[in-house]
């Protein structure tokens, strides 16, 4: 038992070591917070980690499970936990505030106070403080719904031949209030998304998001839910309240899906952890073997995920920081005097990022250049995607090697890299650093 209680600490240690080893560059959110050195970046990251640990601690204090250690293992092993403390300090702050308020309001022991209080906090943070522009607001718009209904009537009336339906009957289903209700419900249903929560390692249905739980955990969730529903397990009220807050947090935010779903990490981990012990201790030999196999698979998934993120960081993570890191690290290692460093507006935050890497950022100029048309300016450094040098192509199709084309113009590729997904559609995935003397 003593050994199992050290597992969360070991996971946390492994996580920190891995983050130090992988050296993922800062995100724009961190840069905008004033991060201008590696030391500041790690200070912000450790503060974010602290906030998330505190938020997770608040939740752990509200639940009653025999082995709290399982809850901690599941939360700390989650890749999305890793993502948020590494890259999104404001998310960590939001989560800390929401869970903190939830924890402290619980002392009043009145459900309506807790629900109302936390609801106000989530709505204030997402809609007012962080100015999120969630899709649900558009779905609820009566004006938009009116337009949709008018469009439906118009195009249906053009259909010839069509099935005759009296206008009054059509109006029952086609009216702006019902359309707003339907659209908002459709938008809300995106919350109930097994694929993003459990199956992102497989990347199903063409949707890509950061892994929240490893796929074997879906079985743990199923078993936990079974216990909760069929055997009236503990923590039902806390789980339901947390799920409700997760839902409100999801529909009122507009970040990437896994960040919007972050709060589900807590209720789902509670469901899984709460009953794991019952199976491990109280189950038959066959059940114990099955559970051990499942735990091994989860452990295997955890290791594989680290390996996957190491091999394919550009697949899993935001590729803009990787792009900035590529050319700014080059400039740091190869200081040269250029009259100007031209960067296209697809890499619009180059000046902000520059402060993290270089001391002198005066030469940076954001300009959406097109060297297939523009004249090459002397003693300039051009940083851009292949489309900036050959002219954009909507099909993202470019020649594999353009060094000859550029040499004919008197410029030379100093370094290039491949960025996995398009940052700028029509400009390709090759990012080049090109010098003109």
């Amino acid at each position, binding site marked *: 038992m003593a050994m199992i209680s050290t597992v969360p600490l070991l996971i946390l240690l492994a996580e920190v070591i891995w983050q130090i080893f992988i050296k993922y560059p800062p995100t724009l959110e961190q840069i905008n917070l004033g991060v201008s050195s590696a030391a500041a970046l790690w200070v912000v990251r450790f503060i974010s980690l602290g906030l998330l640990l505190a938020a997770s601690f608040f939740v752990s204090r509200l639940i009653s499970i025999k082995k709290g250690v399982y809850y901690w293992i599941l939360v700390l092993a989650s890749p999305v936990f890793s993502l948020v403390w590494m890259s999104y300090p404001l998310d960590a702050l939001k989560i800390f505030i929401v869970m903190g308020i939830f924890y402290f309001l619980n002392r009043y022991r009145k459900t309506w106070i807790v629900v109302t209080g936390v609801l106000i906090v989530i709505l204030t943070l997402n809609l007012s403080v962080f100015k999120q522009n969630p899709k649900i607001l558009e779905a609820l718009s009566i004006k938009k719904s009116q337009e949709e209904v008018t469009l439906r009537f118009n195009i249906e009336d053009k259909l010839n031949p069509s099935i005759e339906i009296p206008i009054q009957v059509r109006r029952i289903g086609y009216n702006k209030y019902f359309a707003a209700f339907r659209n908002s419900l459709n938008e809300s249903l995106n919350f109930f998304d*097994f694929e993003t929560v459990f199956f992102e390692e497989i990347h199903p249905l063409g949707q890509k998001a950061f892994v929240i739980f490893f796929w074997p955990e879906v079985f743990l969730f199923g078993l936990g839910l079974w216990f909760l529903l069929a055997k009236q397990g503990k923590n039902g009220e806390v789980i339901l309240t947390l799920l409700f807050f997760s839902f409100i947090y999801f529909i009122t935010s507009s970040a990437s899906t896994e960040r919007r779903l972050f709060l589900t990490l807590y209720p789902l981990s509670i469901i899984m952890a709460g009953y794991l012990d019952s199976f491990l201790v109280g189950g038959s030999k066959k059940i114990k073997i099955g559970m051990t196999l499942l735990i091994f698979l989860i452990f295997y998934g955890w290791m594989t995920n680290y390996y996957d993120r190491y091999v394919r960081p550009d697949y899993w993570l935001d590729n803009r920081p990787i792009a900035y890191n590529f050319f700014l690290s080059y400039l740091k290692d190869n200081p040269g005097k250029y009259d100007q460093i031209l960067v296209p507006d697809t890499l619009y935050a180059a000046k902000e990022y520059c402060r993290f890497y270089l001391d002198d950022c005066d030469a940076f100029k954001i300009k959406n250049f097109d060297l297939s048309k523009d004249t090459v300016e002397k003693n300039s450094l051009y940083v851009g995607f292949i489309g900036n040098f050959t002219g954009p192509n909507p099909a993202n199709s470019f020649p594999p090697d353009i060094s000859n084309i550029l040499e004919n113009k008197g410029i030379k590729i100093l370094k290039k890299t491949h960025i996995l997904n398009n940052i700028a559609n029509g400009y390709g995935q090759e990012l080049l650093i090109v010098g003109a003397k």
Partner: protein
Amino acid sequence: MMNLKKILPILLTVIFIAVSLYVRLVGLEKSPLSIGFDEASLGYNAYSLYLTGKDEYGTPFPLSLRSFNDFKPALYAYLAIPLIHFFDLNQTSIRAPSAILGVVSLIFLLLIFKKVSGKSLLLSLGVVALISFFPWRLHFSRVAFETNISMAFFTGAIWFLLNFKKGLIYKIGVFFFSALAIYSYHASRLAIPVLIFLVFLDPISLNLKSLHVKTIFKKLWPLAIVPILYLPLLLETQATLLLTRLNQTNVFSHFYPFTPSELLFAPNVWLNLLAHPLYYLGGILSGHVFAYLSPKNLSLLIYPGVIKSAQVISGSGMLGFTGGVLFIVGIITAFKKLILSKEGRIIIYSFLAGIAPAVVAWEWYYPLRSLNAFPAIDIAAGFGLLATLKYLWSRKNKLFAYASSSTFILVVIVSSFYNTANEFNYGAWDTNGEFQPGGYKEGVPLLLSLKDKYQTVYIDSNQAQNYTMFWFYMKYPPENIQKIAYRRNVPGVEGPATIDFDNFVYKKFDWPNDKNKSSFIYWTSSEVKEEEIKVTPGAKLYRIKDPLGNYPVSIITKE
């Protein structure tokens, strides 16, 4: 008064059946706009069987239709024959079996829901009446889908399984409906044995400690009858080709080596210690199961590979938004009841059996292959509806209870109206296009009136296997097609994209060269420059307008 209490539920059931039939049969000629390739193939084979007793390849009374070398189970075509006899070959006659059996499935669903929920006929009828307007219930019954009729038979088999111990007639009923399901759609050939196995083994209630081989055999005796149901299929000449469809669609060949290629470091994929293929295969198979429990998928999604075809439900997933919400509530509130009762477990097993074929198919979420799971999903949604009503109705403040319950019912009813209007007309914009050929229904009558006046009919189309559309709408004599069967692709490979028949010849539209030829008709979907045709002596252009107001086809004649 007593009489009314007895008569009312029966009367309402009759009204329910009549309304269900009406919304499924009305306007089948107009909506969905045009038949799809598979519908055309089923229809033409039914026509061929009706006239000659042979399918389009000349096989007498087959159990599987070779069709596009996908060996469609033939039962649908046989069921369409009486309708073709009375109403001729058209969209309505080929879609009507699906519509009628869609209603039959609702009757079975009503009986099942009543039995499993223990509620009165009247209340069960109310629940099933609302379910009958779920988007998939409406849409799949208005298209000639073998999977829809198979689902109806599968639902029948579930009802007979629920009553299995009542007598011999119910036992026979199980196998009769199982056989019908097996002979109507590929997916049921796997789903039926899985269903029988799970229901009779009852693994949820199985006591692992006291498990003996003898007990298992005793429990599973009905499974021994299942192979008999497959015998006629196995004895058919081309029985080995039944696996064709499985080879075309299975998950194992499609995703191999399962692990993303960048993560493979050992030359032998199975020697990768990290990111092992088996880990990813496990994830894919598990994901296939859970995809059918995801409320988001059930409410909002249809397999994305079928966009702009009759397989699409316009602007919705299978259950629609209300169905999706009710499913969540139903799963949470009825879970315990379903697990603890034998009847409930049969519903769970029917869900698992229904998705079994989809689990081994390569698509992540493809409701057409797993339609047999949807009666169970509907039942969960039905429980959700009852639980929501019960919750609202039991509020202490009676005014609130009445108002909230009425509002809830109103929302579900309004959704039904919306789903119906959406299905009848608005869907035309989503069910036609890339995968749904347009212009055949409107253009073929003109082509038919012209074809004998010209030496050659050139067909230019980027839609593979569109010859079936011509045969269907032309009611082309099947004997002529049977005669050219020897020219068609050998079984085991995908069907040929084109087949020249009669004076129809497939070729690419090339007006600068073709205009010098004489006595031909061109059927083309290419952009035709009207001026070029006008200046060519003896050439005439007919543009074919579809109900959406588009011109998907041009017919050019040249003397």
